[in-house]
């Protein structure tokens, strides 16, 4: 195991769903965490969520993604088969010291949230020149 994995990792959570206050489920969305050269990228599936309905909060070492999803309804139509439940999303990731807290950037497209968490300058690996001494 590489020590870098502790820099950004999901918080241990057992429950996959929980009931929120307004009596609809809150799901723990699927996520990928990818390490790039100079940043970590968090990719989270949040179908139905929009730019306005997503909240990203960084508090101490916890980065929380919360997304509200509007109920589906079609005028004059009645739900007759419930293949999947509609609910909100919430998931917390733990980030370590090796990140640039001010440089976090997020965007959503087609129900997928992408959060870029840049590595702190001091955490980036540097090549050290080896001098030849005759």
């Amino acid at each position, binding site marked *: 195991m590489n020590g870098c994995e502790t820099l950004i990792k999901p918080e241990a959570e057992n429950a996959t769903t929980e009931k929120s206050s307004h009596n609809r489920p809150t799901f723990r969305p699927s996520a990928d965490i990818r390490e790039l050269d100079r940043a970590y990228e968090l990719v989270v599936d949040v179908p139905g969520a929009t730019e306005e309905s997503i909240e990203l909060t960084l508090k101490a070492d916890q980065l929380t993604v919360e997304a509200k999803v509007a109920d589906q309804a079609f005028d004059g139509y*009645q739900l007759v088969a419930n*293949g999947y439940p509609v609910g909100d999303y919430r998931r917390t990731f733990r980030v370590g010291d090796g990140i640039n807290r001010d440089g976090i950037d997020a965007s959503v497209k*087609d129900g997928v949230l992408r959060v870029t968490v840049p590595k702190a300058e001091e955490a980036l690996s540097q090549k050290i020149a080896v001098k030849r001494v005759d």
Partner: protein
Amino acid sequence: MATTVTRWNPWQELEAFRREVDGLFRSGETGRRSGGPAWNVYRSEEGVVLTSELPGYDPDAFEVESKRDALTIRGRRVEPTGDDDRFLRRERRDREFEQTLKLPFVPDTEKTEAEYRHGILTLKLWRSPAEQPRKIAVKTV
């Protein structure tokens, strides 16, 4: 000949429709068993609306084809990745699916609508005019 009079039971009608909708998921060669996406089904007298959560799909790769009362839906999701990327955690999967749903009616193909928005695919299908319920006037003789 004996005539049986049955009291009209709206719940029974609803139940009959539920069975029709259940058929929508069961039938077809590549139904739900193939791991196709889950659908929510909304119904009115005019037709049905089907929705499915498909985040991160390539909108251009969606194909919706209807043939009589069978609806075939294809989709593909491929996460763009670089060669040097290192996954610390991977829960989202690249997926490609082809799913055939049997509809409870033959849709009007001219009017079928498909929309992909915020990662949700919505299909609107109308019953063809010949299949729409008609009221028949009763004349007083």
